[in-house]
């Protein structure tokens, strides 16, 4: 059995982020946890393809023993994942910005309460009132 102890660090981080997502009360904090979760996943990918030499081949003599060279594919994939993450985060922050303008808070509970009331008002109307 191979116990990969370096991977465990990123998995610990992943579960810390899940823990944070379950417990935190602030929307900004939740966004940051989502970003951190992504960082943990990226760390995992880079750990499984790690190597002491980066995949930049200055002279071809390096290629004789490829076991020290890092795996280039996870790096390329993770670059893509990073850009996707920041783009989505930008959209989320914009949405949060306009929401804040309306409610003047970034609290999950209060925000959900206010939004749910508006939602129920528009969909259920007077059926909810006794």
């Amino acid at each position, binding site marked *: 059995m191979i116990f990969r102890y370096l991977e465990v660090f990123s998995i610990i981080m992943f579960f810390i982020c899940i823990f944070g*997502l*379950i417990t935190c009360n602030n929307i900004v904090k939740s966004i940051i946890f989502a970003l951190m979760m*992504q960082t943990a996943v990226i760390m995992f990918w880079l750990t499984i393809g790690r190597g002491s030499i980066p995949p930049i081949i200055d002279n071809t003599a390096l290629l004789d023993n490829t076991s020290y060279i890092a795996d280039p594919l996870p790096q390329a994939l993770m670059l893509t994942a990073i850009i996707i993450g920041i783009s989505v985060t930008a959209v989320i922050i914009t949405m949060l910005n306009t*929401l804040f303008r309306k409610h003047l808070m970034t609290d999950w509970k209060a925000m959900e309460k206010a939004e749910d009331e508006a939602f*129920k008002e528009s969909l259920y109307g007077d059926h909810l009132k006794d």
Partner: protein
Amino acid sequence: MLTFFVIVPVLIAVLLYMLSTHKVAKFIAVFFQSALAVFAFFLVLSIHSEELTIFVGTYDDVMGIILYADALAAAFVLLTTFIFLLVSIYTLNQKESRTFWFLLFLLEAALIGLFFTRDLFNVFVLAEVSTVVIAVLLMYDRGKRSMFFGMVFLMLSVIAMQFYLLGLGYVYMMTGAMDMAYVAERITNMTRSELALPYALIMTTIGFKCALVPFFSWTPKVRVYPQAPTAVMAILSGLQIKSAIYLLLRFQGIFGVGASSELFLIIGIAAGLFGAFMAICQTDIRMILAYHTISQVGLIIIGINSGSYYSYIGGMYHIVSHAMFKTTLFLSAGIIVHSYGTGDAYKIRGVLKRMPLVAIGSIAAVLGITGAPLFIGSISKYFIAYDVPPLLNAATIIISLGTIISFIKYSYIFFGDSDLVGDIPVAERSRTIPTLILGVICLIGGVFGIWFIEFLFHTKVSISLIGYIQKSLIFAASVLAGLFIYKRFVKGNAFLVRFGAINFGFKAVCFSMSAFFAVILITVAFL
């Protein structure tokens, strides 16, 4: 060729956004949509002779990205392009700017790409593109939007996608490649306990995207978010969830972990019953439709997991039929809500008198979704319950009964009389025609169901007359039972309405997501 199926819509989208004003944009858009639909039709025809495998770029083997079209993918693409065409005709007369068309084309490109791709990481990229585009489209209307549900949708999707990416990391570590066929080949040598972890991680994401049980509450809310454009609602319910089911099919094909199909059967039954029950509780017509999506997804998952071949075909055909009647219902519901100014199922009356064409299309779809004989739903429901064990058969009948009860509530809106007036008193022609076409297809797909199945999935199936008549009798009996239950228990029941308004918050959904992950992991690894 398949590459251009994906790239060309992107090109058109960017060109539309850069060059045109919105008057010209919509005609160009509809022209290209119909061209795409025609091409998709020819694609389905050409798949009959051989399946297509395309290497993107000049790099062969699994080094680059491979696109792959079999009968399933081609059928889905035909469905996508067809529904997008009708939806864009539907939005023709609205004053949507070029941003709307830009996003619509991108969504189409992303969905088509999802159906064609054979690369696991590409699935991640395209799913993220479609998520962002849908979130923006939901919040499209500038004036009266509130960003909350879109934001929650986006954040939950981002978090769910991290699960997928982590599972993909394990897959890459174990197999060393990203290509689905290659991965499936390598995975056959591995033991079940080794595969449990990546399987559970990936299925968490897919379950979230399919709106299975633990995540039920956000789905209808996002889907029927009142200010969202009707076209977007229809696409979300009719198509986007299908892409997730398609991914479920693909991943079950790759992993081949047989044990979890029982788990998915249980989840499917639970989702079906739950969705049907919540739909009974709703009062808004769009909300009824949205909860029905969940129950129909449950039916589809029962079909594709029950193990028998006929059920599988039934599940596949139910995907098509669900796309047809759910799109019809959402489009007509959009017209009705515009016309009456409210979505309350107890207040709207007399649609048949005010808008006969819309009402006809809508009634055809209602008959389809309830599984009335000769309509599209009856064929797929017949095949789903063809040779399954009696317990599953009973479950499908109960789900159908729930569907029928809520649609009895729904169909009251067609009769009677009302003087509510909303934005538009009479429906425009460009909005009526797509609804009517889809309604007619609901009928044709029922009458010629076997030929449709042969055309789309290349398998010959046959319907025994006695079984079909038996099904029809069950349908008639459940309509009577439904009428009785509706009159006796459902109508004006305040408790049900209050129950229907229950929902979960963001943190609860995060919790249930990880709990779902744990359940799948335990089931696959230890049971």
